[in-house]
């Protein structure tokens, strides 16, 4: 069962490192997963080179969705908005380190959807992030 919920996930769920709001911020976006009601909001500050200097998230959800938000938000500090564009499902799965069925995958991808929609708009989203 520990295969299912690696310690990292439970730890990030219980002790998130990146939880919070940024006020003021350059980008802020919030969305939910209508299937289960999970909600994630991500705030970003970027510098003149479009590099993310600070990032934070708030929200409610299951261990998978909140741990992946925490890990994702942590990983993007220092990246440029262009680099955000290249993040994919596989990056999230690699960060979590577990295999997920299609339903739980939606939980895991909610934060990436919020991040990309916030930066590039919903219209630009890839098919795999249409939750």
């Amino acid at each position, binding site marked *: 069962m520990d*295969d*299912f*919920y690696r310690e990292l996930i439970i730890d990030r769920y219980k002790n998130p490192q990146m939880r919070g709001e940024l006020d003021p911020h350059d980008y802020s976006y919030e969305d939910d997963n209508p299937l*289960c*009601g999970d909600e994630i909001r991500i705030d970003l500050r970027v510098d003149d080179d479009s590099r993310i200097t600070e990032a934070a998230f708030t929200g409610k959800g*299951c*261990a*998978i969705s909140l741990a992946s938000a925490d890990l994702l938000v942590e990983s993007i500090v220092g990246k440029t908005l262009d680099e955000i564009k290249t993040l994919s499902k596989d990056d999230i799965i690699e960060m979590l380190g577990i295999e997920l069925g299609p339903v*739980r995958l939606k939980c895991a991808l909610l934060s990436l959807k919020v991040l990309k929609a916030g930066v590039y708009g919903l219209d630009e989203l890839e098919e795999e992030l249409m939750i």
Partner: protein
Amino acid sequence: MDLSFESTTLDIPAIRRDFPILERETAPGVQLVYLDNAATSQKPVQVIESMDFYYRQMNANIHRGIHCLAEEATVAYEDARKKIASFIGAESWRQIVFTRNTTESLNLLAYSWGRANLKAGDRILLTEMEHHSNIVPWQMLASEVGVTLDFVTLTDQGKLDQESYATLLEREPKLVSFTQMSNMLGTITPVAEMTEQAHRAGAVVIIDAAQSVPHMPVDVQELGVDFMVFSAHKMLGPTGIGILYGRKELLQEMPPFLGGGDMIKRVQLGGFTMNDLPYKFEAGTPAIAEGIGFGEAVDYLANLGMEAVHQYEQALTAYALERLEEVPGIQVYGPEAEDKGGVLSFIYDDIHTHDVAHILDSFGIAIRAGHHCAQPAHQHFDIDATSRASFYIYNVKEEVDQLIEGLYKVKEIFG
């Protein structure tokens, strides 16, 4: 109702042997504990084999053929309809319309009966515990025709508030549509009494029996209802086939739903003559194998006896409720065991239902997480989602114990 296991007349080990899927493992050494029966039931070999036999030995289109196969298939399919009619106490097989599922039956009613009988300003009375399939078709009709929807509220125990019902009946709804068993709370509603009240107020009554017909004796004539709808897949039968039962006069007056083959007697370029009941509502080639499998499922349940099915499941539910109440942090929604079917929805401290279901799944235990297509009922109790365990005739006490053990493990991980 006798809530003890000892008084069951069912041979549960024999029943379990009829369900091959119960032997499977979900991971090496992890045997399936299937507690998601309110979503869909498992199927006994008798049902699986009847469908297999149809495809191997009988496969043909029905009603039109003259040849041997077509005749055998037609008889088998129509026999199933007759079995279903007798299972729910209908006067005639002509009152049994095959649809795809409960949802399609309700949409058929909204489309056909609703459009013919309702006009702007009319009211429809529903309840807060309805499945989305008994809400959305009426919301669609409301925005199209301009009818108004009212909702009977719930008591703290999760029963229908009968005062609210009486008050809303005073608004003289044309239609009252409600469930006989809630798929979230398990609540069994007093259908006979409520139907009589509705009729006195001049309303037509639809009963959503998707959760009740599979688990307890239901007799449409005793209950006095006008329409009843349910799905085969929740009562040991296949997916893709469901029932609309209706009073003959009402079905006769209703315009058809889909047009095409089978629903007509004859067609000319200038128009068509409608077929007799129930075929008027059955356009196109139906789900033949599924119909035959459904007939087999009804035989299986009728052989066990629905009183016995209900008694055993209530014993299981009473036991499960008692055990769940031992677990710190669990809150179960819905009434006491006496007044509910085998559906237990609960929250577990602030542990997300996905996490509960995911951890239980790693022990092979299948439960449901989410709003179970009953968002308004969840909203009533001010919650987003619940975890739901639901039982059927093949579930046993030991599986309830495994569920409880699993829940303690969830607490260890998230505690």
